[in-house]
């Protein structure tokens, strides 16, 4: 079972994602250069976090036009699993692989912090190791992490169980105060309609060891790895 981690100029979460797959999942993993279109043979492709192309213009806008994303579009159409984390989520939205967009945080400041998210869906390949309603502690770090989509897209997200994670308080309640950036419906992560493409602003790959403050990210990584078994 082979993981791919896409490398864009300037993306910096690639190493975290790569190391997490090596150290935590102990699975084979390879970098995929942004100009490459060779995406077959991977069991899951990670589009990592961290400022591809400097987040210039709009985060993810430039990266979404790269050859690798075109190839990933085909890969996803055939049911290939893709997870975008942070900037990776932004890229997937910009590329139209996920609905909606990520907008500037409501306080117009970058925010880095451990937050709590509630698992809304545990049928997916990205969350079946969790229970519905479980609270995960994960770090966020973004300036444009506020999820938005129009009403037409929002309804199906809700009705089709495509909301993966929502910002909540420590006890698991989804409240206004627990929303760190103004996201619609406190959305922190979503799935596409087919359930094989996921995007999330929190970083599970950085929360993989109690010593780092949380190992809750392991549940998400293991969900991916074990469904593939």
């Amino acid at each position: 079972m082979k993981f791919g981690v896409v490398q864009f100029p300037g993306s910096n979460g690639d190493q975290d994602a790569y190391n997490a797959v090596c150290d935590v999942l102990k699975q084979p993993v390879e970098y995929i250069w942004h100009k490459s279109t060779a995406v077959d043979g991977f069991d899951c492709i990670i589009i990592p976090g961290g400022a591809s192309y400097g987040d210039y213009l709009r985060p993810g806008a430039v990266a979404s036009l790269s050859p690798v994303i075109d190839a990933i579009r085909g890969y996803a159409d055939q049911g290939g699993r893709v997870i975008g984390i942070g900037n990776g989520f932004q890229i997937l939205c910009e590329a139209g692989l996920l609905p909606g967009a990520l907008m500037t945080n409501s306080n117009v400041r970058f925010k880095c912090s451990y937050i709590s998210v509630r698992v809304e869906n545990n049928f997916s390949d990205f969350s079946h190791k969790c229970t519905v309603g479980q609270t995960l502690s994960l770090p966020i770090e973004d300036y444009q992490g506020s999820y938005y989509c129009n009403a037409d897209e929002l309804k199906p997200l809700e009705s089709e169980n495509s909301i993966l994670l929502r910002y909540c308080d420590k006890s698991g309640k989804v409240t206004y105060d627990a929303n760190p950036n103004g996201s619609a419906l406190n959305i922190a992560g979503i799935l596409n309609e087919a359930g094989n493409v996921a995007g999330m602003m929190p970083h599970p790959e950085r929360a993989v060891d109690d010593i780092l403050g949380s190992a809750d990210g392991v549940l998400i990584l293991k969900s991916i790895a074990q469904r593939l078994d």
Partner: protein
Amino acid sequence: MAKVNVYVTLKPELLDAQGKVVQGALENLGYTGIEGVRVGKIVEIEIADAAGNIEGKIDEICRKLLVNPNTEDYRFEIEKG
């Protein structure tokens, strides 16, 4: 030679967080009667060759890269030189 100014603004129905902060700041500075502030982008492009369907080309560039149609509107001006 053409100089193109593309103006990209947030769709009016969306909350403009940055605009709101600027508005608050203006109010703090004592300016009254500010009813709304919205912050958008200008992208200035210089193109060597202004022949052909330049409008069509710019429009394409906007839709492909400069603008996120989910959240933004745009208009542009072309100044041929």
